[in-house]
C-alpha cells in the first residue's frame, strides 16, 4: 500500500518551473530513491511534499489523507520526518538540545529517555558529544545529529535529502548501513541522492528526475544495469 503518494505535483519559483507535474509513490516499508543531476528539483520535491515550499498544483496524499495544504509543523505528528539538505541542525544548541528539539512534537513524552538512548546506540559519537555545541561538530557528526534528531519523533516515513553530502566514502557507507537498519526496523524511507550508485544499491525502487520531470522509474537493481543510467549517473 502506498504510504506516500504524490500526484501531478507542480512547483514554481516565480517564473521558474521547478517541478512540472511529477507522480511517484512510496509503499509502506520500502526504500525509494529519487536521483537526478544538480538542479533537477530533488530538494524542491522533498520540501514541497513536507509543506516548506508552497505547491502550485497537484496533490500529496499520506496515509490516505490529503496533506497538500497541511502546514509543515503538523506533519510531524502524522509521522513524517525530514533530514533536510545541508542538515540544518540548530547550531547554537548542544547535541542533546538538538535531540530534544527532535522530540518537540511529542508533548507528553514518557519515552524520551529510551528514545535518546536509541539514538545514542545508533550514533555512539553523539553520546560522547552530547553537551557539545552543534556548530563545532564535524560534518559527519552533524549528519548523524540531523538523522538522530529526525528519528526522535518516531517517524513512519523518513525523508532524507542527500545524507552523503560532503562525507568521506567510509562514512557514506556507514550512513547507508544505518539507513538500511532504520528501514528494517520499520521506517519507510524516501531518499534523495547525488550518489546514485549507493542509493540504488540499498533502494527497492527508484525514480530519475530531470529538470522537473520524472523520466524513468522502476526497480532499483534493474536500474543499476540500465545503460543510460550508467552513463548519466553512475559514471561508468
Amino acid at each position, binding site marked *: 500500500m502506498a504510504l506516500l503518494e504524490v500526484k501531478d505535483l507542480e512547483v514554481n519559483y516565480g517564473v521558474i518551473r521547478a517541478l512540472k507535474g511529477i507522480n511517484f509513490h512510496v509503499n509502506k516499508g520500502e526504500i525509494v530513491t529519487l536521483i537526478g543531476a544538480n538542479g533537477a528539483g530533488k530538494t524542491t520535491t522533498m520540501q514541497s511534499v513536507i509543506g516548506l515550499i508552497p505547491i502550485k498544483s497537484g496533490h500529496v496524499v499520506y496515509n490516505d489523507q490529503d496533506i497538500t495544504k497541511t502546514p509543515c509543523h503538523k506533519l510531524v505528528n502524522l509521522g513524517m520526518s525530514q533530514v533536510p539538505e545541508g542538515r540544518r541542525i540548530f547550531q547554537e544548541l548542544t547535541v542533546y538540545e538538538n535531540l530534544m528539539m527532535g522530540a*518537540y512534537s511529542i508533548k507528553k513524552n514518557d519515552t524520551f529517555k529510551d528514545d535518546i538512548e536509541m539514538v545514542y546506540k545508533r550514533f555512539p559519537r553523539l553520546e560522547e558529544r552530547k553537551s557539545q555545541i552543534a556548530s563545532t561538530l564535524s560534518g559527519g557528526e552533524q549528519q548523524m545529529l540531523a538523522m538522530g534528531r529526525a528519528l526522535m519523533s518516531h517517524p513512519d516515513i523518513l525523508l532524507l535529502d542527500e545524507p552523503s*553530502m560532503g562525507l568521506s566514502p567510509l562514512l557514506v557507507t556507514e550512513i547507508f548501513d544505518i539507513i538500511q537498519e532504520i528501514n528494517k526496523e520499520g521506517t519507510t524511507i524516501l531518499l534523495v541522492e547525488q550518489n546514485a550508485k549507493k542509493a540504488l544499491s540499498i533502494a527497492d525502487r527508484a525514480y530519475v528526475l530531470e529538470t522537473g520531470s520524472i523520466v524513468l522509474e522502476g526497480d532499483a537493481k534493474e536500474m543499476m544495469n540500465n545503460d543510460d543510467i550508467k552513463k548519466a549517473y553512475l559514471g561508468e
Partner: protein
Amino acid sequence: MNILDIIINSLSTGGTYAMIALGYTMVYGIAKMLNFAHGDIIMVGAYTMLVCINRIPYTTKLGNMVADMLVKQCGLEEKVAANITVIAFGIISLIIAVIVCMLLGMIVEKLAYKPLRGASPLAVLITAIGVSYLLQSAAQIIFGPNQQNVPVGDFGKSKLFGVEISNYLIITLVVSVVVMVGLTLFIKLTRTGRAMVAVSEDKGAAQLMGINVNAIITLTFAIGSALAALAAYFTLIKNVGITNNMGAMPGIKAFTAAVIGGIGSVPGAMVGGILLGVIETVATKIPVIAPYKDAISFLVLVIILLVKPSGLLGKKRREKV
C-alpha cells in the same frame, strides 16, 4: 556625587533600557524585523495606566474608601494610607497595562507585519514606522498633546552605607534583574524557550520539528510588549510626565543598546542596556559633557560597531553548508 549613588542610578537606568532593548532584540532575532513601533508600546502602556488611575470614574472613590479603611482598621496615618493606596492602584494598573500591551503587540503583529512575511525588509520597516505614527496620533487624538502626570505613589528613600538612595531606583534595578534572569531561564530551560531559539536560527528546520512558527512569533511580540509596559511603569515611578511621543527617545536609545549588545542576542540586549545606563549616568555627573549625554551614547555605538560590527555579544553570520 557618590560612587554607590552612581552605580545604582546606572543600573536602574540601564535596567529600564534593557527591558526595552529586549523587545527589539527578541523580535529581531525571531521575526527578523526591526519593530520601530516598539517604543510606542511603552507610551500605550503609560496611557493605559493613566486611564486606570485617573480616568475611570469611581477609582478615586474606591481609592478613598480603601485609604479610609486602612486608617480605621490598621491605624495608619492618613498620608501613609493614601500613599499605600496609590501604590497598590499603580501596581494593579501596571498589570492591566501589561495585558493591554501584550494584546496590542499581538494585534499589530497580526494585522501589520504578518501579511508582510517574506516581503522586503524595507517594506516591513516602513510599515513599522507607519504603525508608530498611527499609535502616536491616536494617543494625541484621545488624550491631547499636553504632558500629563500619572501618580503611582512615593516609594520613599533608604539609607545604604550612609548614602540616601531613592527606593524607586532600587525597585527598578531589582525588578529588571529578576525579569532578565527569568527570561534567560525561560529561554534556556523551557520547551517553548528552546523553540524560540530554534525559530530564530532556522524557521524551516523549526517547522520540521513541529514548531508552529507563527505562534512563536506572536508569543515573542507579546513578551516584548509586556516588557515595554514594565518600562512604562519605570518611567512613571520616576514621576516623569507622559506625552504621546514619550516612547520615541527611549525607544531609539534602547534600540542603540540592542545594537551595541548585538541585535538578536538576548544577553546582548541586557549588557547593552546596562552599558548605556552607565554611560548616561556617568555623563550626567560630569558637568562639561552632561549636555551631550545622548550624543555620547551614540558615539559609543559608533565606536563599538567600528571595532565589532556584530555588536558586543552578536553572532557572526555563519556560512551555511
